[in-house]
């Protein structure tokens, strides 16, 4: 007992000293490797949409420091604002998708998803030709070569609905639609209740059960506050159209990785964009259109 008391006293002394100094205390497991100051600032951090520019800047720096202590990687966390006059739309040519899953693995890498976390933003479904019942789909197909005779492939991810049911379900307003149409999550504001997962008809939201395990050399250092920054455990995540890339004019990682060119992405408000050409000239459909969630994600075949 005396031993325990002694340890407790020591721990308390360290704690109080740290509190008194209010500065860097040596990395203690109890603080997750953060300094006391950062831990306090994290605790009192506001919702993204209520933070001032300075507060966001401070939050970005904290995120970078936390990534440094957690993964030993210098990341660059940005807050690229949405572009004026841009609403993103996506289309997939299902007659050209061969089910290679290159998009899935590019997404995992790009978005710093834990390699062991059992979570992927994109699923490629294998269905019988002529069958469009998603309950019959096989997510785990692993034949020698794809495409398999008599099957077709349907990649699903977040449809970035224009009337998103997940946003309505969130009790703390930790998720919302940005002006460029991307539905984002403030991972620091999310309480992990998973109501949004229940509300989403597209199985697009995923719960982070574990702290993502990522080898330091595979860490993507180009990150965004609302996108692929390292996330804590116990929050809901989703596809964000690679917000850190697309807001700078780059393609989403899944589109860049697709070897068949099935994926088409662009600005819905630009009449000359590829996506508008597809919508005007191809037979397009959306999944579960009858639910009225207005997905900005189309499928077509030619």
């Amino acid at each position, binding site marked *: 007992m005396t031993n325990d008391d002694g340890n407790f006293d020591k721990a308390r002394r360290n704690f109080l000293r740290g509190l008194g100094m209010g500065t860097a205390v040596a990395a203690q497991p109890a603080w997750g490797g953060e300094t006391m100051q950062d831990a306090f600032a994290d605790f009192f951090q506001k919702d993204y949409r209520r933070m001032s520019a300075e507060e966001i800047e401070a939050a970005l720096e904290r995120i970078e420091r936390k990534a440094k202590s957690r993964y030993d990687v210098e990341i660059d966390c940005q807050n690229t604002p949405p572009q004026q006059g841009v609403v993103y739309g996506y289309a997939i*040519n299902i007659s050209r998708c*061969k*089910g*290679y*899953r*290159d998009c*899935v*693995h590019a997404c995992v890498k790009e978005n710093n998803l834990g390699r062991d976390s*059992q979570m*992927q933003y994109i*699923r490629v479904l*294998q269905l*019988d030709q*002529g*069958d469009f*019942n998603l*309950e*019959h*789909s*096989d*997510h*785990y*197909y*692993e*034949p*020698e*070569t*794809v*495409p398999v005779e008599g099957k077709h492939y349907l990649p699903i991810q977040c449809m970035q609905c224009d009337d998103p049911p997940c946003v309505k379900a969130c009790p703390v307003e930790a998720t919302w639609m940005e002006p460029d149409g991307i539905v984002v999550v403030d991972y620091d504001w999310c309480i992990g209740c998973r109501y949004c997962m229940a509300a989403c008809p597209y199985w697009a939201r995923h719960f982070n*059960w574990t702290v993502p395990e990522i080898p330091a050399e595979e860490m993507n250092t180009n990150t965004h506050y609302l996108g692929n920054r390292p996330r804590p455990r116990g929050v809901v995540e989703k596809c964000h159209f690679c917000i850190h890339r*697309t807001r700078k*004019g*780059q*393609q989403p990682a899944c*589109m*860049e990785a*697709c*070897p*068949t*060119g099935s994926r*088409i*992405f*662009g*600005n819905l408000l630009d009449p*000359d*964009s*590829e996506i508008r*050409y*597809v919508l005007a*000239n*191809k037979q397009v459909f959306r999944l579960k259109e009858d639910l009225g969630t207005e997905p900005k994600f189309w499928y077509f075949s*030619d």
Partner: protein
Amino acid sequence: MRKSQLNNRALGSNVVRPLSPTYVAELRTEAAKYLPLAALLFCSALLSANAQESAEPTQALRFEGYPNAPVVSVVPRKDDLFFYPCDQCHAAMEPNPEIRPLNAMHDSALEHGRGRIWCTSCHDLENRNFLRTLLNERVDLDQAYLVCGGCHANRHKDWVFGAHGKRVANWQGDRTLYNCTHCHNPHSPAIKARAPKSAPPVRAGLELDRGTEHEKSHIWDSQEEHAKQ
């Protein structure tokens, strides 16, 4: 109304990425077989190269385009070709228009067109450094899309407007497209089947569901049954 200016702007080599690694590997292995022969012919061709160079100027063909077509540029590819310039060998050879089984370096079967087309349907007979369109115009190898579009007009239009093929790197700004021949082997254009990347893990506590447990029914099944009654 804007006119399409499909030009052949030279791009930095960092954007030149052959899309299908299997296709490239195929070419490489095939090419490696003929390496000694190619080296020999290359040396002999070098001797007569200067005379040939100025004889055939590149006739850049301006593509007239479609109404309201976007301005696009195409990733060049001929520097990646192992045998290019073809003149290295063909300058020293007599053009032979006869349709015959090839036994030298180009012995791979021409699957494209299933026997309805022949080398000179696309390649220029007189100068093998160039392609040839249906209008008998000489076209650079980097403008292969003009030759492909001669038959595959719908695909070509989709490619120009962005519904077919692949754009390089960005969704905004200058449009740079991969050429048809980046993805499709022009001699065997169908995309080959290959192994998929690994399947997603089954979440802890859940069982593997292959979708086969569910009773499968098609809409037309019930209709057919209904028709029988």
